[in-house]
Every structure is written in structure tokens, then in C-alpha cells.
């Protein structure tokens, strides 16, 4: 058979909870020429396999018993970057209705197979998918590295052929433009696709691009139109909910997500968003019931996050059920033992103790949460610590954490929204919250500009000191870190090489490359470093 050579070196992972299907799939795949096969019964085993092996193809049954389903598993893999974009993910399902949910969801599999299927049909599909895998290999590799500039360049090379992948290339390029903060070009490209056919994902893409351009009303109207036309378009609910929430209309956002939940029980991300909104709009009962039900269903499943327990505990604490809130924390501690989880649970515990009136224990728990290195924590956790600080009347500490969250994530609107939420929950006026956020933002811009100005004036030592101090404090602020690397490089060129400073410069540079390989400042830093080349190679 012609396809034997094509399949034989491909690594395949099969996930199916039914013993009969597992052994049949094993036999069929072997007959089709697949030699490198791993077959598992549940997603826990799948994740263990995936930790040590890179698969070309994953075949996953949609229904995996009573627990987490295949779609939730795929969402988990994609949101946590656990599989390459180039890995073929095929969902196997007996339900025709599944296709509707999936076509309209954020994480669609590469293909799905409706049961029953014959080996001939299966092989023919896999051949097409492997052909696509090869065609997109370069683009997917760049996307995995989050090198959006290269994704766009590769798409531009392929687009003029207008072959069968044309529309998918448009979709990929538009998504990369969005990642690169180029919403105008993304909107133009989505409109180009829409001129050919009003496809759902292109309409939603356009709505996203409009929102990114600040045209929130247009974005909102468009997503409402999409939902009127296709009430099963789950991703459109999520987008509209997020849009409403970010413009401060949390009640309306919650309504939208409730409607979504009525259509489809939903993914973990939606449940998290919904419960969080319910807590912040004063409906802890709703948050409790949704999250309890979800955690019950996903008992022992790896798609759970420690934050899910934190939300549930907070919903309980807000209802005055402090004991239950503390029980939830104790439950979570059994499953989540890493350092970051300990911080989140300490914060959660502090809030629960505060609700019970045990301020001493609340203080002790919070002290544990505050003890670690703030730069090792995601900004969301930092805002949660601030929230607990406010609850115990520690305004200065709370503000310090919030300022850090903003200054360390200058491009992240969702973090600014989180900070805003925490300030409002602490009883601040909207104007006060806005002023605090603006002040924090301006402070770091001032530091940046002053550093650059000093460098331009030739005061390199001062510029380096100012920017390095800020860069070490805010390692996620790429503008600061980039400028710190750049002024060191300029100073080395001007004043002669210094191995220690060069090492520091490279450390900053490499940190940026790791986060954003196509960050424009890297080229500037590198061109200065090249001027040092003789000294560098002499080391």
C-alpha cells in the first residue's frame, strides 16, 4: 500500500475510554502501516505520555466517560501550549451534533471523524491531514515560537498561489497580525475573506480586530449580529462577554455567558469567567453552584486549576460560609502542591479567615503569600494578593502590588481591568481607580523616557543604572528591559567592553527573545552588539 511509507514513521497517540474501541483502533492503525503507537484510556495517561513524547497525530474520543471530554481536553492542551500547532488532533465522535459545537468553538480540532468509520475513510483523511501538516510545518513552527513576524512572512509567501489552503492561510495570517498588535491589517484581511463568503470565524475575527482598534461599539454590534445568525457560535458569546466585562458592564457580560451556558455546558475557561463575573457582581450563590458542579464533574481531571478552587472558596466566603470556604482550600492543597498554587491558596485562605472574623489567622496566611518573589508570580495572582491586603486594611501594600502588576504588564488590558476590579471591590470610586492606574502607567513611562534621554545626552552610567533597576524590578515590561539592554550596548560601544555588563545586556536580550522573538528592539540591540564583535570574540 502506498500509504504505509507515509504513516510508518509518524508517532500516534490514541485516547479512548472504551476497551473495545482501543483494541480495534490499535489493530486498524497497525494494518494501515502505523508503527509508533501509544494507546491510552484517559487524559491523565495521555498527558503523561505527552510529557515525554512528541506526537504527530493525536486521535481522541470526544466522550471519555463521565469526566472531562475530548473538547475540554483539547482546550486544555491549546490554552497551556501543550501541543505544537503542527500536531494533528482528530476528534472521534458518535455525535453529529458535536460538529456544530466544535465548528463554532475557539479550539477546533484539525478534523473529526464521525463514528462509525471505515479504515479506508480514516486513511484517506489522515493522508490529507499529513499533507496539510507538511505544507504548514514552517508556519506552525514559527507560531509555536510565537514569532508572528515570521508567521506573517511565511503566509505572504504562500498566499499568492491561491491554492486549496488559501482561506486557512488568510485565517492564520490574520491571527498572527492580531498577535502582533496590527488590528487594522487584520481587519482588512478578514474583510477580504468576508467578501468571498460571510464565514463565521472571519466575522468574529473582524469583531476582535475592531475591538482592538478601540471601536468597541462596532465590535459589540457585530458580535450580537453573529449570535443572532448563529446562536451556537460559542466563541462569539465568549468574545462578547469579555468585551462587555472589559467596558465595565459585568452584569451584561454575565448574562451573555449564562446564555452560552444554556446552549452548551461549556469549556473550563468559560466556567471560570462566568464564576468570576458572578462573584464580582454580587452573585456568589451562582458562582458556587456553577463551580461546585464543574469541579464535581472534573474530579481528578488535569483540566482543573487551583484558581477554580480559589473562586469557589471566595464565593463561599462572600456568603459568610467561612468554614466551607476553608474546606475548599484544604481540598485544593491535596492536589495542588507547587509553589505558585501555595501562594494562591494562602491568599484564598486569608480571605476565608477574614470572612470568619479570624484576623490573626488571616494575617498569617497573607504573610505566607507575600513572602515569595513577586516576579515569579503571574499578574493575576499579584492582584489577588492585593485584594487580600485590602480586606485586612493594608492599603499601602495593596497599592504596591497593584502598581507592580500594571507596570510589569504595560500592554495587558486584562490586567488593568483586574486591577480596576480589585480597587472597586475595595470600595474605591471609579475615578480614583482610573487615576491610580493612569499614575502607575505614567510613572514607568517617565522612568523609561528619562533613561533614554540620559543615554542620548551621553550620561550612560546614570541611564544604565536607572533602566537596569527598573528592568530587574519589572522583568515582564519589555520596553524597559529592551531599553536597558540597548543603553548597556550603547555604553559598551562608547566606553569599551566590560564582560560583566555585556553578560547583563545579553541576559536582558535573551529574556526578550524568549518572550517575543520578533520584538523590534532586538535588531537595534544586536546591531550595537555587532560593533563590539572583536572584543566579544576575544573573550
Amino acid at each position, binding site marked *: 500500500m502506498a500509504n504505509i511509507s507515509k504513516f510508518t514513521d509518524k508517532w500516534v497517540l490514541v485516547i479512548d475510554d472504551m476497551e473495545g474501541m482501543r483494541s480495534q483502533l490499535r489493530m486498524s492503525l497497525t494494518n494501515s502501516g502505523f508503527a509508533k503507537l501509544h494507546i491510552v484510556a484517559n487524559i491523565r495517561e495521555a498527558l503523561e505520555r505527552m510529557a515525554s513524547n512528541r506526537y504527530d497525530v493525536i486521535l481522541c474520543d470526544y466522550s471519555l466517560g463521565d469526566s472531562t471530554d475530548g473538547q475540554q481536553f483539547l482546550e486544555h492542551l491549546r490554552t497551556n501550549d501543550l501541543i505544537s500547532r503542527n500536531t494533528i488532533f482528530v476528534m472521534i465522535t*458518535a455525535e453529529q451534533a458535536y460538529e456544530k459545537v466544535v465548528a463554532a468553538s475557539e479550539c477546533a480540532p484539525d478534523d473529526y471523524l464521525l463514528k462509525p468509520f471505515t479504515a479506508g475513510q480514516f486513511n484517506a483523511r489522515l493522508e490529507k491531514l499529513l499533507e496539510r501538516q507538511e505544507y504548514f510545518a514552517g508556519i506552525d513552527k514559527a507560531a509555536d515560537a510565537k514569532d508572528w513576524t515570521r508567521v506573517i512572512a511565511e503566509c505572504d509567501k504562500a498566499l499568492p498561489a491561491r491554492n*486549496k489552503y488559501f482561506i486557512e492561510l488568510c485565517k492564520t495570517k490574520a491571527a498572527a497580525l492580531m498577535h502582533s498588535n496590527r488590528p487594522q491589517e487584520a481587519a482588512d484581511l478578514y474583510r477580504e475573506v468576508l467578501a468571498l463568503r460571510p464565514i463565521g470565524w472571519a466575522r468574529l475575527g473582524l469583531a476582535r480586530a475592531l475591538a482592538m482598534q478601540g471601536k468597541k461599539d462596532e465590535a459589540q454590534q457585530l458580535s450580537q449580529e453573529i449570535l443572532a445568525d448563529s446562536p451556537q457560535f460559542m466563541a462569539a458569546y465568549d468574545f462578547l462577554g469579555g468585551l462587555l466585562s472589559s467596558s465595565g458592564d459585568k452584569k451584561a457580560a454575565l448574562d451573555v455567558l449564562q446564555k452560552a451556558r444554556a446552549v452548551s455546558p461549556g469549556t473550563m475557561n468559560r466556567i471560570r469567567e462566568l464564576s468570576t463575573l458572578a462573584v464580582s457582581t454580587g452573585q456568589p450563590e451562582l458562582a458556587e453552584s456553577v463551580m461546585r458542579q464543574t469541579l464535581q464533574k472534573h474530579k481528578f481531571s488535569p483540566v482543573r486549576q487551583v484558581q477554580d478552587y480559589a473562586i469557589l472558596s471566595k464565593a463561599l466566603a462572600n456568603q459568610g460560609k467561612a468554614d466551607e470556604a476553608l474546606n475548599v482550600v484544604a481540598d485544593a492543597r491535596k492536589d495542588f502542591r507547587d509553589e505558585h498554587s501555595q501562594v494562591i491558596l494562602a491568599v484564598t485562605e486569608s480571605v476565608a479567615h477574614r470572612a470568619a472574623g479570624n484576623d490573626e489567622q488571616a494575617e498569617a496566611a497573607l504573610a505566607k503569600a507575600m513572602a515569595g518573589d513577586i516576579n515569579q508570580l503571574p499578574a493575576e495572582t499579584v492582584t489577588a494578593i492585593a485584594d487580600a491586603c485590602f480586606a485586612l486594611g493594608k492599603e499601602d501594600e495593596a497599592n504596591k502590588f497593584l502598581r507592580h502588576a500594571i507596570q510589569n504588564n504595560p500592554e495587558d488590558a486584562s490586567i488593568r481591568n483586574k486591577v480596576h476590579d480589585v480597587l472597586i471591590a475595595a470600595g474605591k470610586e471609579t475615578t480614583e481607580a482610573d487615576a491610580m492606574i493612569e499614575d502607575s502607567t505614567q510613572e514607568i513611562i517617565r522612568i523609561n523616557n528619562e533613561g533614554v534621554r540620559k543615554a542620548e545626552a551621553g550620561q550612560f552610567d546614570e541611564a544604565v543604572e536607572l533602566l537596569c533597576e527598573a528592568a530587574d524590578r519589572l522583568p515582564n515590561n519589555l520596553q524597559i528591559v529592551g531599553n536597558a539592554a540597548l543603553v548597556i550596548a550603547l555604553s559598551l560601544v562608547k566606553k569599551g567592553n566590560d564582560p560583566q555588563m555585556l553578560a547583563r545586556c545579553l541576559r536582558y536580550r535573551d529574556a526578550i527573545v524568549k518572550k517575543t522573538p520578533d520584538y523590534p528592539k532586538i535588531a537595534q540591540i544586536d546591531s550595537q552588539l555587532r560593533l563590539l564583535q572583536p572584543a566579544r570574540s576575544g573573550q
Partner: protein
Amino acid sequence: MNELYAAVIHDVKNQLAELALRLGDRANAQQEMNIAMNAARRLTEMLLAIRQESEQLSVTPDSVDTADFLSILAAEYRELFPALTIDIDTAHAPAFAFFDDALVRLALSNALHNACRSAKRHVKLAAREQDRMLVLEVADDGPGFPDAMLANMGDTPTSASSRGTGLGLYLARKIAELHELEGRCGRIELSNNGGAVFRMFLP
């Protein structure tokens, strides 16, 4: 729809899936596999018909390569009907077309299944562009459609005939009609020309 019914149908399809794979591993069990696959397709059609009646059937068009689409369909039926030759003609098909892959696949599998059952030796699948419509065609060299079916054109599911209950044809017509672009709707056409010819026109 009643969730229990859906769960039972789901379960039956799972069992048929296992059966089909087991049969696929045996030599000369094509006819048995054929029966299992057909039974499963009938269940799917029934579920879709129920959704269609309660107006819950909607199409989600996306870009599809017709050559790939037809070759996957042909691969399945070549396996089920090894005595027939199934040819594909996409010489005049567009580079990419827009339709709901899953629903159109179901409609065409029904047409292809009937064609394979009636054909003497040859079945032909074709895709081409005609008057700003995509035409998907299934033609066989059998005795052709009975007159009653030509007159009815999938208007209503008819009583059982040599070519099935007509439910598949009825659904194919509905699926075609749900594809709409700028006021133009899809449709199906049946004719006899040296055998039965099924055509689906999509805007």
C-alpha cells in the same frame, strides 16, 4: 429531543463503530461492514431529520477543497463496494469552495451509497463550477431513478422503494437549501442519463 433517545442512539452508533472496525480487519466482510455502516448512517439521518423538523439544523460553511472532499468520500465507498470503480472528476472545480463539510458529506454519502447499490460497474463523482454555483454530482450506470422519485425530487420522504425511504434525499434537499448566499439558495436535481444522476447545486 429526549436525552434518553439521544443517548441510546449514541450508544448504538458506538457499537456499530466497533463492529465496523472489527469487520474491516477481516477479509471478505465488505457486505457485512456495508450493512453496519449503512445502519449507522440511517441513524444519523434520523437524528438530523428530527433536528431539521424542530428547525435546529443550521449550516456552518467554511472553505473546502472539493478534490480532497470527494476523494475521502470515494475511499470509503471503494472499500465498501470493491467490485465497482469510483472515478473522480474535479478538472473544472474551483481551487476552494465554501460549504458545510459535515452536512454535505452526509448528503453525498447517501447519494453515493444509493448509486453504489444500483450501479453495474461504474460510479462517477464530479465537482465543477456552473453559473456561479458549485455542482457536486454522483452518477451511476444502473437502471436510473424510478419515475416517482424523479417527480418528487426529495420533496417529502416517500415510502420505501428500491432506492430507500427517500429520507436521505429529503435531507439532501434541505441541506442544499440551507446553503444560502446573497439570496441564492442551494438545490438538488435528479435525472436519468445512462443511469441515475444526482446533482447538488450550492451557491
